[in-house]
């Protein structure tokens, strides 16, 4: 009964709108960061030095590379190179996993030192430090959740590519997942300096 309807531009437009909502979602945390930084500049610097910059750096490299691989996957599917598309998507998913595993070790180390939201050790370090670490855990946690969602999304679309449901003529789904992945990358590009570098 219903008439076949397809509007790739519309689908992309909708995705951009959705990404905008994600930016606003994170912006709430950025606002809190800005306000707290203004209130506790010294404590923020002190707390920031407790973070292990190597974990952060590795994860930045991992995410940047994954943005590259997913972008290459789009070019591949446009040229109808299905195998290469699948390989590049798989690499993106693998890098997402590396990111999460890395995060796991980073968090384990910190939690091992008694630094986590609500911990007594953290409470003893005083207001500003506590605020920094709470924000760090919540923001990075929310970002990690997005890595997980993005990875899942790319996995599902890869299966659809393998089954021939997403093709060289019809690849908006892959493109939209890639856009989502770039957002995940973009958010991290802001988190990394704010928490690890500038203070």
């Amino acid at each position, binding site marked *: *009964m*219903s*008439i076949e*309807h397809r*509007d790739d*531009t*519309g*689908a992309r*437009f*909708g995705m951009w*709108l*959705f990404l*905008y*909502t*994600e930016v*606003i*979602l*994170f*912006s*709430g*945390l950025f*606002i*809190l960061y800005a*306000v*707290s930084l203004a*209130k*506790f500049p010294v404590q923020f610097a002190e707390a920031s030095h407790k973070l292990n910059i190597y974990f952060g750096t590795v994860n930045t490299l991992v995410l940047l590379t994954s943005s590259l691989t997913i972008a290459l996957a789009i070019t591949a599917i446009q040229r109808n190179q299905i195998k290469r598309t699948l390989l590049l998507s798989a690499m993106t998913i693998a890098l997402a996993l590396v990111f999460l595993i890395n995060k796991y070790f980073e968090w384990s180390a910190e939690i091992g030192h008694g630094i*986590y*939201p*609500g911990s007594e050790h953290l*409470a003893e370090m*005083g*207001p*500003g430090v*506590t*605020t920094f670490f*709470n*924000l760090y855990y*919540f923001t990075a946690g*929310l970002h990690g959740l997005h890595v997980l969602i993005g990875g899942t999304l790319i996995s599902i679309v890869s299966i659809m590519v393998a089954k021939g449901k997403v093709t060289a003529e019809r690849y908006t789904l892959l493109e939209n997942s890639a856009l989502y992945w770039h957002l995940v990358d973009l958010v991290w590009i802001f988190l990394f300096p704010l928490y690890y570098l500038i203070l």
Partner: protein
Amino acid sequence: MTQSTLTYNGFYSESPRPGILGWLLSTDHKRIGIMYLCCITTMFIVGACLGIAIRLELIAPGPTIMGPQTYNATFTVHGIIMIFMFIIPSVPAAFGNLVLPIQIGARDVSFPKVNLISWYCYVIGAVLALFSIFTGTGAPDTGWTFYVPFSTHTNTNVSLAAFAAFMLGFSSILTGINFVTTIHRLRAKGMTWGRLPMFVWTLYATAWIQVLATPMLGITLVLVILERTFGAGLFDAARGGDPIMFQHLFWIYSHPAVYIMILPGMGVISEVIPVFARKPLFGYWAMAFSSLAIAFAGSLVWAHHMYASGMSDFAILVFSFLTFIVAIPSAIKVFNWVSTLYKGSIELAPPMLYALSFIFNFSIGGLGGLALGAAASDIHLTDTTFVVGHFHYTMFGGLGFAFFAALHYWLPKFTGRMYNHKIAVIAWALLFVGFNVTYMAMQAVGIQGMPRRYYDYLPEFFPLNLVSTIGSWVLAIGLIMMFVNLWQGMRKGPVVGKNPWGAATLEWTVPSPPPMDNFGPDDPVVTRGPYEFKGVVADEY
């Protein structure tokens, strides 16, 4: 269906899947709209019962029908239901889904599956909210605003309620994305921006607010949940946090949200008034741009809820000024409706009565808003029942009445049957009188100093509270009468043709109820504006 049989059943009988699954898995915008309508109306009735219970408790000083804890839970749940489950989705999700695609000549929204997901998010949110009343440690008692520090410390089921509101917000975002994309991409041939019905314009402005503001509520609610689970202290002054930051984050969404509530209502009124005055809408472009201006300016005024919370005098000055700016586009709308009525051949059919009372109520609410926008008078009035009266005037007297107008205006289109006009008018009169008595008395007692959200009060506030409670009963009778009449009309009323009101927008050119794909085999081509009534004739019924 009994008595006169409908010969044609439209989208009710044409579905790729039969039975209940044909509804629950349907991606058709009309079916989703009807499902929204059923859920939203149910939630409204639940919420209204709680409202009556609050009023009953306040009928006289001292305890009457419930204890203080129950009272706190009752107004909290009343607020959560009415805000997140009734007014925010009422007109956009229910009537937007039903009418918007047909009005722009589309066969569906841009993302039909997302539309269905959005409905499920709504249902999950509503179910979780109801769960939060009956499970765990007791119904939430924070007020619908979830203000910290109370919301992070109370033992009641706040986390679940906050998560429910989060889901409802997600539903709202998805609807917004769908509508913006649909309006940009799926307009029929000839449906230029200058020919969009005003309802579409207001939904467009609303959808942008939904997309841009709702995530802020999302993150705020997530933070409340995290604070409760981990005791992090981001909003706790003792631990370096800041409770005022919570209020900022909360109102950055929740003030624009009042425009999510009112704009689609204004859209309904702008559709109804020209039809029943039989005159083109006065000042089309002024109306269209004032919708966008309200959406824009309304996003800048959130801190007028916080004059008394502690802000710099300069900030108060700025937010007070910006608040007054919003009055300008709102007033443009009121004046344009009145100008449309001027020298029109006015027909006082039920939708029109609701539309006219919208203008009346909304104007009172809006003027009260100016009293609250000015910091000096707000310091006296804040957190009194004047505030409660004010927002009921705008939200219930405004959007609520617009919703009723929409029910009376569009239900015949989607059921193919007409309700009884005489009963509709009596119900309207009861509603109008009951509403004004209830909330005018509430405003008056608020000016005298009666605080809001209080379980008990001093004896000098007794007379006006009594009046208000009696008003709420008249209101309730009106509501019952209206719903029964609509229900009866939908089941047994006389059959109507395509265009019972003689309106000129596209939805009145298709059969009632519309067929599954809205327009038959050929896409429509639009050649006239939405308010050009020349040559349009109303069908007899």
